[in-house]
């Protein structure tokens, strides 16, 4: 129970960073913190007491395995997260070359 709550607190810390920070790189960091907490949440869901890693040994068939499905989902989600981070960093470096700053308050052409 406490692990789930801590995991959600990590998620909220990331969200706090995204909303309050005024620096492009800090926003990217906060987004990846949110991402990691979500992965951890899925991994927690799959754990079963006394279970072993889901790799079958044909010699020893009767074992309890942890749930492989959340692990497969996280495997997919990690790569998706890498893709989004890479795209975000590309936009950030592009914006830095245009404006010469990471400060979001000075990058405000569009409003209203």
């Amino acid at each position, binding site marked *: 129970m406490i692990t789930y709550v801590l995991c959600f607190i990590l998620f909220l810390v990331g969200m706090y960073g995204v909303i309050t920070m005024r620096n492009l790189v800090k926003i990217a960091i906060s987004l990846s913190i949110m991402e990691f907490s979500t992965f951890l949440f899925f991994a927690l869901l799959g754990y079963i007491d006394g279970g072993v*890693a889901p*790799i*079958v040994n*044909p010699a020893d068939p009767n074992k309890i395995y942890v749930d492989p499905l959340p692990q497969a989902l996280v*495997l997919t989600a*990690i*790569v998706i997260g*890498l893709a989004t981070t*890479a795209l975000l*960093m*590309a936009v950030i*470096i*592009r914006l830095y*070359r245009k404006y010469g700053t990471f400060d979001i308050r000075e990058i405000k052409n569009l409003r209203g």
Partner: protein
Amino acid sequence: MKGMTIIVKKTTQLIAGMIFMYGIYVIAHGHLTPGGGFAGGVIIAGAFILVTLAFGSDFFKLLKKEMGTTIVESLATIIVVLIGSAGFLFGTNVFFNNFLPKGIVGNLVSAGTLPLYNIFVGMEVAASIFIIFLSLIIFKEESPK
């Protein structure tokens, strides 16, 4: 981007090949041990990135066009799609059917199409991550400050 000192270069020469081989091992044993296409692909990309960082980006002579890697990546993905579609054709009209014989659990050549998926996904992931890194580096050099 310029390379680093001679010490780094020599060490990289020794290590990069081993990292590369380890990536191939992880890919090839993906259906037996932890790891698989994604992990192995990222490790191989890591070996390339290490070499790029040590020797400088002109080591790869790809400054103008990242043509090579894009084609590898597109081809690898299209092969994944083709293997999926091959299930569609050979299997019972089902997309992503594992249509090859399964073999004995625990052998290196087993599990039907899974090793093939592992290999091609590994190629695709390695190519994509390396191309992302390379284009960032090249952009940093070419664009005006």
